[in-house]
């Protein structure tokens, strides 16, 4: 609500958050894996009242011409209309597209999945991993919730058996999908010149700028996305990177 | 901070350029204050009068202000008012009471008998609200319907150049082309007369070269003068 925007900004200026949390504290985070039995892998993540479910479905397809011996990972984010009065039914909004692509880059750039291991027959058949992340309840911080759900679902994924002779999937979950890294995305939000973690929906409306940073097991950075109509100084970006590394380590334990 | 003007008169500046430092200098049209500096908001020519710094923009749309004399076209009407295109993202309203001084029985009269859709008028801007609701009035000795002729559009910020000091430039064109010419503050120019084509070429030339030196001489030469 717009009326609350200036109220929240004033509170933050005075060092207070509307729900009383410290600036660097997340709301309660829960990760539950294997919640969807019809999927090859799945995870349900809650951060405060934000609630998302990610499901992994595996299929086969021809490889892309420039990667003939590699499988594919496709990530989609759906803002289900009942998650918020602001969400409309229809094709993905620019916001949903952005989140999907940023989650994708976090997983892709650190090579969390060995795409060569997804090859069935070079130039002919490879595995395609479809990760669909559905937002069930929206109360802010979707980048973090969606990326956590995606990587959690991947660690839960079993690759079905593919019978090359018969040319089809034999529907038995076979071996665990090998995951080589555990990228965690943490978004830092700038309100009234201060940096906060895990903004809820109201705080997001008061945000000048945000920076989503993906970090790896080894403490490297593998993806970043700045958003919002404000700006960040290089000092603020450096602080955000430190916050993200620290928080990423904590969140990784939930996987 | 000591107050200092940092630009020369008529220097070309871009958005963000720091024009003056110190709170003594005030940001006028085309400028904004950041901290203790006055900075430019637009691409244009800087000017400073006393302590007020302003920018004459090179380009930009017409934003109506009360008192402007403009060339407008009637595009719609209801029973007691007309709606006009004033070459701006904001349409303008002309109330019957501001257009006609005699009594009009609106029950029996179709107001298109006064102004019809498509009519071109020279008219004055009466009021502009904060939400950019614009009203016009014919209550001005120069206001009238413009019949025949042709219209041209120029960048509104170049209107002063086209008119010239005390009308000198526009008189130059009128004299050499035998045309009636009316220049609206909104960038719409209406011409009618013997050599409309020549006059419109001269107007185009002035618009394109508004920011250069020696323009009056070149225009005179172009029009066939000495």
């Amino acid at each position, binding site marked *: 609500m717009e009326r609350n925007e200036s109220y929240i900004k004033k509170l933050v200026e005075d060092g207070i958050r509307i729900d009383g949390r410290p600036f660097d504290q997340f709301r309660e985070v829960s990760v539950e894996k294997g919640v969807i039995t019809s999927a090859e892998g799945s995870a349900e993540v809650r951060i405060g009242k934000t609630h998302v479910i990610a499901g992994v479905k595996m299929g086969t397809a021809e490889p892309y011409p420039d990667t003939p011996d590699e499988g594919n990972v496709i990530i989609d984010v759906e803002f289900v209309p009942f998650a918020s009065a602001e969400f409309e039914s229809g094709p993905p909004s620019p916001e949903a597209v952005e989140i999907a692509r940023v989650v994708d880059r976090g997983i892709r750039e650190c090579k969390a999945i060995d795409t060569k291991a997804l090859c069935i027959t070079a130039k002919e058949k490879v595995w395609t991993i479809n990760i669909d992340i559905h937002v069930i309840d929206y109360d802010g911080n979707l980048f973090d919730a969606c990326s956590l759900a995606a990587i959690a679902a991947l660690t839960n994924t079993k690759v079905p058996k593919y019978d090359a002779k018969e040319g089809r999937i034999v529907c038995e979950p076979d071996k665990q999908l090998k995951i080589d890294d555990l990228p965690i995305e943490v978004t830092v939000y700038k309100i009234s010149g201060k940096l906060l973690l895990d903004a809820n929906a109201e705080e997001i409306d008061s945000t000048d700028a945000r920076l989503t940073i993906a970090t790896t097991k080894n403490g490297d950075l593998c993806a970043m996305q700045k958003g919002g109509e404000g700006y960040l100084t*290089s000092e603020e970006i450096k602080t955000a990177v430190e916050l993200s590394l620290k928080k990423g380590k904590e969140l990784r334990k939930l996987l | 901070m000591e107050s200092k003007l940092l630009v020369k008169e008529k220097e070309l500046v871009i958005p963000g350029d720091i024009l003056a430092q110190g709170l003594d200098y005030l940001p006028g049209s085309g400028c904004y204050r950041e901290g203790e500096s006055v900075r430019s908001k637009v*691409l244009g020519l800087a000017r400073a009068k006393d302590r007020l710094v302003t920018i004459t923009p090179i380009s930009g749309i017409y934003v109506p202000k009360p008192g402007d004399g403009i060339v407008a076209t009637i595009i719609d009407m209801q029973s007691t008012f007309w709606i006009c295109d004033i070459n701006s*993202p904001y349409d303008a309203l002309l109330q019957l009471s501001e257009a006609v001084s005699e009594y009009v029985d609106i029950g029996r009269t179709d107001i298109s008998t006064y102004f019809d859709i498509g009519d071109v008028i020279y008219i004055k801007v009466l009021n502009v609200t904060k939400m950019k609701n614009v009203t016009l009035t014919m209550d001005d000795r120069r206001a009238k319907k413009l019949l025949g002729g042709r219209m041209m559009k120029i960048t509104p910020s170049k209107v002063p150049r086209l008119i010239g000091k005390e009308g000198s430039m526009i008189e130059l064109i009128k004299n050499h082309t035998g045309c009636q010419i009316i220049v609206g503050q909104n960038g719409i120019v209406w011409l009618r007369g013997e050599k409309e084509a020549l006059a419109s070429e001269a107007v185009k030339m002035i618009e394109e070269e508004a920011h250069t030196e020696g323009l009056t001489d070149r225009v005179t030469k172009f029009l066939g003068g000495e």
Partner: protein
Amino acid sequence: MGGKVGAPAALIVKGKRLDGRTLEEFRKIEAKAGNLISTDGSGFFAFGNTKAIAGVFGPRTLHPKFMQNPRKAIIRCKYAMAPFSTGERVRPGHSRRGTEISKVIEEALSSVVFFDNYPKTVIDVFMEIIQADASTRCAALNAASMALASAGVPMKNLICSCSVGMVDGKIVLDVGGKEDNFGDVDTAMATIGNEDKIVLLQLDGTLSKEDFFKELSLGLKGCSDIFDIQASALKDKYATNSEGDENGKE
């Protein structure tokens, strides 16, 4: 980057990149303003073979009415790649990549435009990549920034954009095509004028935080250089030897 089809053996040899540049050198840059005839403002920007054209209409009336903001202007940005701009033809029409890039560019430009001056209107910014060789969104944003200025849209400052990256373990400025495909990290950045105020930042690739901080530093410097280039392009186009004007003789 072993293993990728078509990867050259090395991207940097003796401090020189594939196209002969040093690590902190831009490709040949071309910047122009006022290049289109029908728009209110326009810009052109090229980094080497990457070429972008931008056109601005507005502020103009926004239809349908329900989309109008009664108190300020809104901005709509559309980034697109021409089908012939890349090696493999790009299918025309919406793409998710185009949607995302349009969004981040719109947010970057929004940081400086004075929307309050023109309630109920829309400022439309169209950008097209006519030739792509990496850093396309940076070229598009630079062109759009000049286009807005040439349209007379009031802004706090220009927006200046460039890319930085990591190639063969070294931090480089202005990532080129092969470096984008076979390098380690690609990062697009944009700033408000030549100030330390970052309005666009997108990073792909794995690197340490120390290397990232080096990239950030180099990127800020690069954006500052871009600012000088854009300023020159605008001043060249609308250059004046001082103006004779309504107040006096020449």
